[in-house]
């Protein structure tokens, strides 16, 4: 009997120690949710159809190119949907050649004949692959960008469905900057300026149109940018006629860093990959004296004049602040987002608000717990002490479990903790009341305790398992906060069974082993 007691005691001690190790220091091991510590929470929608369209365009172009090589001409190709295009040709022969080529080069496309046109649709599996790859690439890109932010423990995760990304940045409270940094598609292109020849841009679209006699050539488009004065302040808009062809883009960048220009103004320096340098050298070599538009997300940042052939490095001046130069380098380095995104959900909790809720919550929790402890002691005397130790151990295990699962404590999580504590108190009350009942029925202390625990056991198991089942469903089907509630509840319930049945019993047995059989029980 004594030996048995010792082993059980050691087991309880071991559990307690493991939990202390798992939860200590609490500041490091228990993550506070954004609602408690402040930070930015975003849900982004990735418009995967952007990427799908790009893939469709490129496959379509490839097919036409291949056909041209086999001297099939007179094809008209049009994209008819996100993942569909049609090709029509003058002769049926041409169409069958195109079908052959498609069979060889475009395995993921299904072609069907409709009158004198071929309708191509991407198969569902490939569509899904493209969409998922887009989301994953976007996660990667955002990850790289956030890395530069120096946030500890950022969460950047794709959701299971709906092509979304959840971003959580604890401690960050400049949502504007985060939004800009993430949302920046950062698609960089270098384009040759056709008009005005010397770079610099003109004041209106009409001026450009007038230059071309009212009709833009097919390979030219108009882009706009900011007009700046000597001090780099924005004073208006400026327009450029640039070539549509993009030979060098952000994909050809090897690196980008913020730096200082000749007047100490912040600039971004970049270097190019070997293939990028080759293309860039060719582009600039052929266009010495023309303007070279540096286009970011469809806007001209700056359009300096090419003075000589440039191959592997260059710089972008755009009247940046240091912060902007830093952020632009970051997004250029991290690569372009594969698709545009919108914000579905955005929450910013200021640290002051979060701190207020923690303080108030803690105060309420302490007062409430103290009241319960006093009531337990007053009502159950020494046995109350037993319940209190079991309760404290319960909370310890709860935090140990949260540390082990790296779960996050949120406000709903605190609700879970409260429910757990309530149920743990209830488990003890169940046992005590049962013991009292047995004592009233005239049993000895020993058998009253044995029977009390035995009979309360089924109640405890049933109440806990019922709640556990509901917690599991909530975990499975709930979102963020509901999940947080379910996690703390699950850990807490398991801890509660252990403390109420095992620990509390051990404490009773320990007391019984050191006393006279006839002495009354303080309960």
């Amino acid at each position, binding site marked *: 009997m004594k030996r048995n007691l010792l082993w059980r005691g050691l087991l309880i001690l071991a559990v307690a120690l493991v939990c202390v190790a798992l939860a200590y220091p609490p500041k490091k091991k228990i993550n506070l949710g954004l609602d408690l510590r402040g930070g930015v929470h975003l849900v982004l*929608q990735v418009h995967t159809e952007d990427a799908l369209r790009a893939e469709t365009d490129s496959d379509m172009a490839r097919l036409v190119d291949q056909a041209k090589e086999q001297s099939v001409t007179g094809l008209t190709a049009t994209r008819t949907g996100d993942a569909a295009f049609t090709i029509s040709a003058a002769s049926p022969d041409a169409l069958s050649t195109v079908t052959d080529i498609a069979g060889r080069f475009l395995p993921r496309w299904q072609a069907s004949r409709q009158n004198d046109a071929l309708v191509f649709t991407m198969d569902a599996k490939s569509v899904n692959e493209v969409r998922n790859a887009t989301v994953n690439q976007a996660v990667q890109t955002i990850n790289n960008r956030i890395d530069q932010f120096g946030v500890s423990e950022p969460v950047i995760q794709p959701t299971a469905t709906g092509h979304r990304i959840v971003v959580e940045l604890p401690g960050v409270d400049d949502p504007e900057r985060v939004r800009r940094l993430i949302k920046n598609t950062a698609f960089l292109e270098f384009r040759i300026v056709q008009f005005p020849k010397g770079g610099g841009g003109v004041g209106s679209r009409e001026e450009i149109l007038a230059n071309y006699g009212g009709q833009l050539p097919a390979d030219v488009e108009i882009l706009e940018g900011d007009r700046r004065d000597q001090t780099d302040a924005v004073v208006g808009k400026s327009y450029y006629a640039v070539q549509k062809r993009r030979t060098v883009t952000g994909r050809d960048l090897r690196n980008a860093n913020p730096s200082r220009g000749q007047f100490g103004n912040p600039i971004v320096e970049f270097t190019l990959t070997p293939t990028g340098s080759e293309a860039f050298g060719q582009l600039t070599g052929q266009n010495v004296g023309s303007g070279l538009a540096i286009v970011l997300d469809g806007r001209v940042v700056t359009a300096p004049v090419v003075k000589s052939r440039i191959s592997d490095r260059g710089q972008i001046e755009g009247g940046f602040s*240091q912060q902007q130069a830093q952020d632009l380098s970051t997004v250029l380095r991290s690569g372009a987002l594969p698709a545009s995104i919108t914000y579905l959900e955005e929450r910013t909790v200021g640290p002051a608000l979060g701190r207020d809720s923690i303080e108030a919550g803690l105060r309420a929790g302490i007062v409430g717990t103290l009241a319960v402890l006093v009531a337990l002691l007053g009502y159950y005397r020494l046995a109350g002490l037993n319940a209190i130790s079991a309760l404290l151990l319960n909370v310890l295990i709860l935090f140990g479990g949260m540390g082990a699962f790296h779960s996050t404590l949120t406000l709903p999580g605190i609700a879970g903790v*409260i429910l757990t504590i309530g149920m743990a108190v209830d488990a003890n009350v169940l046992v005590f009341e049962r013991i009292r009942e047995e004592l*009233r029925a005239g049993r000895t202390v020993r058998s009253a305790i044995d029977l009390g625990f035995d009979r309360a056991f089924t109640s405890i198991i049933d109440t806990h398992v019922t709640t556990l089942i509901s917690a599991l*469903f909530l975990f499975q089907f709930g979102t963020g906060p509901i999940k947080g509630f379910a996690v703390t509840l699950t850990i807490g319930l398991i801890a509660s069974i252990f403390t109420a049945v095992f620990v509390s019993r051990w404490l009773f047995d320990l007391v019984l082993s050191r006393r006279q059989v006839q002495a009354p029980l303080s309960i």
Partner: protein
Amino acid sequence: MEFLHDTHFDFMKYRRFWIIVSFILVVLGLYTIFGPHKLNLGIDFAGGTQITLGFRETPEIDRIRTLVEQAGMREAVIQRIGKPEENQVNIKTAAAQGTEEGSRERLVAALSKSYNQGKTGVDLNQTGLDGLTQALVRANPDRVAPPQAGTHYAGIAETILKDRRTNGIFKSMDRIARLPGVSPAVASALQQGAHLGDFSVLGTENVGPQIGKELRSQGFWAVLLSLLGMLCYIWFRFELRFGIGAVMASLHDVAVTLGLFTLLGFEFNLTTIAAFLTLVGYSVNDTVVIFDRMRENMRKSRRKPLIELMNDSINETLSRTIMTSGLTFLTVLSLFLLGGDVLRGFGFVMTVGIIVGTYSSIYVASPFALLWESLFGPGGKWSRKPAVAAGPARPEPTKIEPKPGELPARRRTARRRA
């Protein structure tokens, strides 16, 4: 110390009366939730934008409302929150048609039209890091050489903004001047070139209508499935009628509490869902304890009518019910009173829920199990099974007064065993 023991209240005597009372309460609750009062759905579920502003002086709600309405955002909910001296205001606007992105910019612009009028330069209560750094670099009060200026002033700007974030809106320039790293030159440059706007944005939440809809349906299914899960477990461990009774009791508690919650205008959001889940947890817990005792008593005395067994079981567990409910009540009451704005709604649900839940586990769960039995049980009104077909049939609940001198069933068996 002991409050109650060996009680013999006839709880089931007035069960029809209490079922009717509960039914009326549920109907009233549902009427409040879906009727003219309407549940105050938070932006979590309704979609929309909620921003928390701190003001330098006591905010005038009416003025803010006029400004917001003039900007075309009707049905905005504007409330003072926090401690009175903190001058905080919460503005909630509905989701704009056709866009998932929020109306933060529009709100701030609308308010700035009236507040902050005629002030020039950077607004120290609004500006972000970029704006402030740039303004400082341009003024260059510390006479730093251009290459280092950016880093130097970015550091100062960060210090100033950090203080604003942690300690709230700047009410005077003095607080900025006292910050470490802010030189007198910088302070006076800010005094001249910048101003302190009348309000500052402390927090923003924006939930697009799409997400709102999803959160709504996910929350609904999670709760429904978890209730079904409980029902199945109780069915498996006890009997179907007990499962029905327990689920009915929790639905009753949710309807009544939610009705009162709506009536008092609390906001229903994701945190509140957690509160209602907790409430369901307590309610079922309470009910299961009583049912457990019923199961035990049923095994001991098979001949006793169910109704009497129920009364015995409720009486035997009464002391525990009062004790547990009382202790939990203490905790949630302190949450309600001391928990601050965020936890107040939660505390309210639990405080009311504990009372209603304790009542329902006695007066709703057991009577419902009885009702189910009399309707669908063997020989029940709507049952296809004849009375004799299934198992040891329990007689229709008829009242049998315990004969004086006869011992309650439990002790009799206990003694026999011992």
